[in-house]
C-alpha cells in the first residue's frame, strides 16, 4: 500500500538504483489509458520526452540532453507495459532497454520506468573491476 501524496518537490516517489539499471516511479492524475497514450502518441511524446520524429529507419527522439536516440519498439511482456530499446544515433552499440509499466492506483495511475543498459558491458565492468581491484591490492 502506498499512501504517498503528490505534494512533494520532486516528481519521483520511489527511487532505486543498482549497477545495471535506473528506476523511477511517479503517481499521475490520469487513468491508465491516458498514460499509455502519452507513452505511445508521437505528439504527446514530443511535449514531455522530446521532439519525436519518424524517418525511413523508424522513430527518433531528441531528448532534452540534445541526444538523438533511435527508438525500437519491443513487444511488451504484459498489457500496461511499453518497451523500447534505444541508442544514441552517434553510438548505435550503446543500447539500453526502457520499460514503462502503468498500473492503476486508487483513481490514479502509477508509472514506473526502468532503463537498463545492455548486459554485456555490465559483465565487463564487474569483471574488469574485480581484476583491477585485485591488482591494486597486490600493488599496495
Amino acid at each position: 500500500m502506498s499512501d504517498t501524496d503528490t505534494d512533494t518537490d520532486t516528481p519521483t516517489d520511489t527511487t532505486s538504483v543498482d549497477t545495471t539499471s535506473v528506476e523511477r516511479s511517479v503517481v499521475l492524475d490520469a487513468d491508465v489509458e491516458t498514460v499509455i497514450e502519452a507513452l505511445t502518441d508521437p505528439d504527446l511524446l514530443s511535449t514531455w520526452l522530446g521532439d519525436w520524429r519518424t524517418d525511413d529507419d523508424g522513430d527518433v527522439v531528441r531528448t532534452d540532453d540534445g541526444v538523438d536516440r533511435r527508438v525500437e519498439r519491443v513487444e511488451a511482456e504484459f498489457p500496461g507495459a511499453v518497451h523500447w530499446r534505444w541508442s544514441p544515433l552517434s553510438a548505435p552499440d550503446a543500447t539500453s532497454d526502457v520499460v514503462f509499466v502503468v498500473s492503476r492506483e486508487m483513481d490514479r495511475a502509477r508509472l514506473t520506468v526502468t532503463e537498463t543498459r545492455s548486459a554485456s558491458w555490465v559483465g565487463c565492468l564487474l569483471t574488469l573491476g574485480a581484476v583491477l581491484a585485485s591488482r591494486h591490492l597486490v600493488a599496495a
Partner: protein
Amino acid sequence: MNDADAVFAALADGTRRELLRAIATSGPTTATQLASTRHITRQAVAKHLSVLSDAGLVSGHRDGREVRFHADTEPLAAAREWIDATGAAWDRRLGRLRDLLNGPE
C-alpha cells in the same frame, strides 16, 4: 558521443572486452603479443585497440619499435556516471509528464 557512450560502445564488442581484460590482467602489452595468442590478425587487434584507446580504456606508450598498451580505470567511473545522469534525466522527463497530465497546480 559523450564519454560514457564511447565506453559503452567500446565494451559492446566481445573481442574488445576480452582484449581489455587481457591487458588489465597481464599488464602493458603490444598488439603483436595480443595477436600471437589469438585467432585474429595484428591489424584487427590494432583496430580494436584504437577503439579502446578512443574510449580512454587503454593508452599506448612507445617502447622502442613497439607500442605497449596498458588499461585505464578512469573511464569506468564515467560509465558509472551514466547511472546518475540517466536518473536525473528521468526525473526531469517524468516531471514534465506530470505537469502535462496533472495540469497547472
